[in-house]
């Protein structure tokens, strides 16, 4: 075996580290309108190319072009844009709240707003999201009371989750928002199970599963895809590829070897790769996949290509592991700016209204924050009694004894 050279170990590296210039030359960006739009009952084998391209609708000038360009009702666009602005205002305010020491923890979705919001707008009442921690847009797009979100974040006396759960891991059943887990990936297969149940019952509800690029490496991603492949339940499997996990880039999840959309091919599940910062594309593709599921054609996986502009969480400092200017160099731009331009171009919006909306939402969130703070911050106001409730439906004797011991 003398002629074999020593093997080499291969550890993928991102294109840039702190001090380097951002480098996105690897990110292929096909022109808007270039990707075909198949029928919803298409054979997954016939659209494999859609997992390697990027479905884009909005061109540089803000026009909607190509087969995925839909005639989106004005009120949908308007609500979409406003919800994005509102979400960003919310994120900013919560960040401040955390810096003020009023909550322990927060996570922003800056730059990714279009995905959760447009997807939610394509969904129907009765459907269920199985979100991660970066889909606050789902709640904001439904006008779930902002003050209740903040109450949860503050773990205060009005926290709907009674102080039991970490900030931002909301649970809002009536808004189709499944309780967010702190454990990555687990929700993906649960979504498949929920969708299986809908099919078992002969209902028409669909599930939307959410996962990040980094978390696709978790084993439950596979469990989800295997079950989706076998039982073909009505589920949309959303992978939000925002390029980064915490400090590790998408190559550490295998993203340099194939796209995340391509993962679906080994399971016979159709998949689409989409410009996640293009609101129009997100809305159109979401509708396509949701319709496909609801018409009984089974699961779809969608990779939403985007960029995590914010730090991973308030505990994180991205300047430690990626080029400083990377987020502004991201070639797919800002989803809010892009939709705004599109709407201004089409006479639906203006710079003034935009500025006004920003102020309005900032004020709304400020007011809500103030109200929420009046019920306590950083866990104050939550009752120790609640600690013992909801472990089981009925409190078993040993917990009753412990509660007594504690004197509450």
């Amino acid at each position, binding site marked *: 075996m003398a002629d074999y050279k020593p093997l080499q170990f291969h550890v993928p590296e991102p294109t840039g580290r702190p001090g380097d210039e951002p480098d996105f030359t690897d990110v292929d960006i096909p022109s808007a309108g270039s990707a075909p739009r198949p029928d919803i009952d298409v054979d997954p084998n016939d659209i494999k190319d859609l997992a390697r391209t990027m479905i884009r609708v909005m061109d540089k000038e803000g026009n909607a072009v190509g087969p995925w360009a839909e005639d989106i009702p004005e009120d949908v666009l308007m609500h979409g844009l406003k919800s994005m602005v509102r979400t960003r205002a919310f994120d900013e305010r919560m960040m401040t709240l955390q810096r003020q020491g009023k909550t322990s923890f927060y996570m922003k979705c800056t730059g990714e707003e279009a995905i959760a919001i447009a997807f939610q707008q394509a969904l129907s009442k009765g459907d269920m999201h199985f979100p991660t921690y970066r889909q606050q847009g789902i709640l904001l797009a439904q006008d779930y009371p902002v003050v209740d979100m903040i109450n949860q974040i503050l773990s205060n006396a009005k926290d709907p989750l*009674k102080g*039991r759960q970490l900030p931002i*891991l909301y649970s809002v059943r009536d808004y189709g928002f499944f309780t967010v887990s702190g454990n990555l990936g687990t929700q993906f297969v649960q979504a498949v*199970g929920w969708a299986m149940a809908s099919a*078992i019952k002969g209902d028409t509800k669909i599930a939307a599963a959410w996962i990040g690029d980094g978390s696709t490496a978790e084993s439950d991603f596979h*469990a989800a895809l295997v079950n989706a492949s076998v039982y073909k339940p009505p589920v949309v499997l959303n992978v939000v590829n925002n390029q980064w996990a915490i400090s590790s880039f998408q190559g550490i999840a295998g993203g340099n070897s194939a796209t995340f959309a391509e993962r679906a091919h080994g399971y016979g599940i159709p998949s689409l790769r989409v410009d996640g910062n293009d609101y129009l594309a997100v809305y159109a593709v979401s509708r396509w996949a949701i319709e496909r599921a609801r018409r009984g054609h089974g699961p779809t996986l969608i990779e939403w290509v985007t960029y995590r502009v914010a730090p991973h969480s308030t505990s994180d400092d991205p300047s430690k592991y990626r080029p400083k200017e990377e987020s502004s160099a991201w070639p797919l731009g800002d989803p809010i700016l892009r939709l705004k331009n599109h709407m201004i171009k089409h006479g639906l919006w203006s710079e003034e209204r935009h500025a006004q909306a920003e102020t309005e939402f900032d004020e709304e969130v400020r007011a809500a924050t103030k109200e929420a703070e009046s019920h306590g911050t950083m866990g104050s106001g939550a009752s120790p009694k609640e600690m013992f409730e*909801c472990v*089981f439906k009925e409190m078993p004797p040993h917990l009753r004894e412990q509660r007594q011991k504690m004197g509450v």
Partner: protein
Amino acid sequence: MPQMNMIEAIRDAMDVKMAEDDNVVVFGEDVGYFGGVFRCTHGLQEKYGANRVFDSPINESGIVGTAIGMAAYGLRPCVEIQFADYIYPAYDQIVSEAARMRYRSSAEFTSPLVVRTPCGGGIFGGQTHSQSPEALFTHISGVKTVIVSNPYDAKGMLISAIEDDDPVIFFEPKRLYNGPFDGHHDRPAKNWSAHPRGDVPEGHYTVPIGKADVVSEGSDVTILTYGTMVYVAETVKEETGIDAEIIDLRSLLPLDIDTIVASVKKTGRCMVLHEATLTSGFGAELAAQVQERCFYNLEVPVERVTGWDTPYPHAQEWDYFPGPARVGAALKEMMEAV
């Protein structure tokens, strides 16, 4: 009353609940067409259709994970993990998800599901077909842990488990499927037809989760046990003539501490007997509680007789298994000590 072995009783429980409640679904590896490697779901797919009884991919995390999703939808999944030794891949979904769903969502979402799984050794199954991992679940807040020892309880408690609004891990000692095995592996096997607990009522009845069963009254010593070891204890009582009060715990969490304390206060001695390894086994919890609650009544320390702290060996199965000889010797020693 019909005679059933434990397999039939378990099947009957699912049958009763599936007939009563459309939301009950049953799945797991080989449980569909074939009816399970231990035949516990035999005939159910034919009766209720593949919509409600089906095979699952070989992915235990997926079995529990999909069941959690279904339970959140409103179904009542009763799933099978083929051997308790294969429950570990599903451990995260059980611990971090099913067990915590109610708490973290403040009861917006719950996990009313049952994980049935055959446990225990004595079938020459080696380290991967013999384990008794019950203590790994009793430490987890939010799941109930049940382990049955006879057909009557098996049916009644499985019905309770399916009706329970919280997740239940339901252990079935596989060595008891066909008869009340007492550890005398060299003697002819008994079957359930000769045992009163092999009489199993038709239709719906429940045995509550959280109540122990005093299977044999006595005044010398209390034996706290469950699963296969119940019969070892009974045999040892008979063979040694020691008047032991034998308590089949059945439900480990919640635990029927009142029954335990009453008995130990009466007898003044307590043996804990299980097949799982000693260290951090459920016997540790029992010993800890008994010494705390019955301290001034105990004549001798609480004694644990258990499997050794080794993996379950293949050839040395009967050396590992806490059989009548070991239990008898320990019991005598306890009685002889001051």
